[in-house]
């Protein structure tokens, strides 16, 4: 109900037809009140389309992908044992609604299975158990040594819960309200939404990462293969995959959702051999926990981009 300056994304596309598609996706997003950045790139031809591709955005659970790659690389090089059991106690583990974070009794889970839980059901407790083994600073340093300059890892997953609860005292609606207000004022009461403190990424950096993982051009090949396998097992299909659900297509992805942020990165692979890596990092003013039309708009964009780039 309030008038804001029209959202004008900066487009990036390899040719005019792709530019049209990028514009159509941005328009579709604007119609449901989504702002954000998007990039889709054909893994083999490098053709791409998107907009606002260099905007750094708090990553939410998308950060679990670079964390997984660093942990898997340590496993592949023998520094970490995938079979090593890790004890996770609900009394001290991270907050979340899935996986070990939802457990009510202590459990011992192998490192390799922490990776599975973290990537398939976005388990925060598994992610932070992995951060115990591979500290935040080590993950960040490893990414820089790989030349992933557009991705910053600065805090554990539970930090997001702590900051949101600290600002809003366990009131989800209030926390969301604060997040949306701060987006417009630029002053962030929730530190994990502040670009100066948050885990950050740009769609360009994330698509670069996916492209290198799918082409075995980063880390140990065993690590990239396992990351591809685990991302293919993600259970969430409401977002990037929502318009790409067919037996002839495979979507390997990782979602990220925190307050008003709704992200997903992933790779769409067809039986025909076409492979397209994508990243959608969005925010909106919608004060709702569930916004299926926003998820669907991201999915519609993903399908549009895949169909344009596979030719």
């Amino acid at each position, binding site marked *: 109900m309030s008038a804001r300056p029209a959202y004008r994304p900066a487009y990036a596309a390899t040719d005019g037809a792709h530019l049209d598609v990028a514009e159509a996706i941005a328009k579709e997003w604007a119609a449901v009140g989504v702002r954000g950045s998007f990039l889709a790139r054909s893994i083999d031809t490098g053709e791409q389309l998107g907009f606002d591709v260099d905007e750094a955005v708090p990553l939410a659970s998308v950060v679990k992908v670079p964390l997984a790659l660093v942990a898997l690389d340590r496993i592949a090089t023998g520094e970490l044992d995938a079979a090593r059991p890790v004890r996770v106690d609900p009394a001290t583990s991270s*907050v979340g609604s*899935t996986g070990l974070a939802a457990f009510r009794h202590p459990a011992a889970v192998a490192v390799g299975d922490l990776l599975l839980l973290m990537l398939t059901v976005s388990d925060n407790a598994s992610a932070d158990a992995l951060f115990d083994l591979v500290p935040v600073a080590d993950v960040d340093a490893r990414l820089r040594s790989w030349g992933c300059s557009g991705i910053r890892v600065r805090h554990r*997953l539970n930090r997001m819960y702590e900051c949101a609860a600290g600002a809003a005292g366990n009131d*989800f*609606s209030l926390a969301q309200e604060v997040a949306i207000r701060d987006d417009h004022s630029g002053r962030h009461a929730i530190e994990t939404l502040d670009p100066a403190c948050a885990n950050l990424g740009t769609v360009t950096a994330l698509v670069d990462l996916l492209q290198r993982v799918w082409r075995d051009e980063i880390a140990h090949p065993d690590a990239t293969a396992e990351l591809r396998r685990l991302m293919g097992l993600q259970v969430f299909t409401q977002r990037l995959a929502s318009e790409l659900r067919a037996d002839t297509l495979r979507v390997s992805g990782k979602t*990220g959702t*925190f307050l008003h942020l709704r992200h997903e990165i992933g790779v769409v692979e067809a039986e025909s051999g076409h492979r397209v890596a994508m990243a959608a990092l969005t925010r909106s003013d*919608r004060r709702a926990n569930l916004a*299926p039309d926003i998820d669907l708009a991201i999915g519609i964009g993903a399908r549009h981009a895949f169909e344009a780039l596979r030719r």
Partner: protein
Amino acid sequence: MDLLAHLEAYVAAVDEASFSRAADRLGIAQPLLSRRIRTLEEHFGGLLFDRSRRQVTTTDFGVLLLPYAQDVLDRAHRLRHMARSARQSAVRAVGVPADCGPAALARVIRAGAEHGTTLGVHELPPEDRAAGLTDGSLAYALVRVPPEAAALRVPLGLASAPPPNTPDGAHPAPAGARPGPRGRTVHLEDLRPRRGRGATYARRAALPILITAEDQVPYARERLSRAADRAGLPEGLVRPAGPMATALAETLANRVTLLCAEPFARRHGANWAPLGDVSLHRGYDPGVTRRQPGVSDVPDWLVALLAAAVGAAPTMSGTAQSDAAGGNAPTRLAARG
């Protein structure tokens, strides 16, 4: 000394030629009357009555002063009368919402006359009614407050076009015509667009919901937009109504729905169904200005008539369950998926 009371005692005693009859006429005890006359005699420095005989008589001094005393009493009486009639002829402004029925407002004005108060009704948006009480330009007004704390609660619902196959369907029923059946309770999440393209559901988008100025008060607008967000309604489905005639015309033409109270919808021949979430209904408190002397509480008869004019529900002292932030498990604050 209350000069007027003392002069009254004196004049009554002259008229009645008896202290006891004069006291009866004035409705006071005779010793009080006698004392007043004595005080007056001391004040004027001479006896007004000759008490030496069995029958009290007026002295020459008493006869001389009588017309002057009568004159003072007459003028005092006229002064009081003047004050009363001036008070009665002053128009007291009453601020009401813009969607009240004319007949109901006429009853307010007529009842005012019966109670010796001239009322003028003013249709104003909510913020102007509150401002009018503050600056004293309104004597009374209905002030918007959240419904759960309100003295008067007005159910809000959606007005929609009458079905085309009703007897009067071709042209919407005139005011006062038999009301259509009350629609089923509206739950906002039921208005979400359906995703399927199957044969069962025509893939029809929900009609926009227009909001009138009466519901543009900040707290109400805020609640509604949040409720719409949480119910998963598409962006922009809830939006401000422009001019009322246009909004009604679009409603009756089945292009939009209009958020309003039931009497308003019925008056214009629209169907109406209440909103299930009572925290989105209207609440009113009868307010009174502090800037006008002689205006204190809102009279009960006025409250009752104003309640009828805005379509307030029979008082339910129940609590509006405002579970706007329901299901607030801490896990929702964490990163999810």
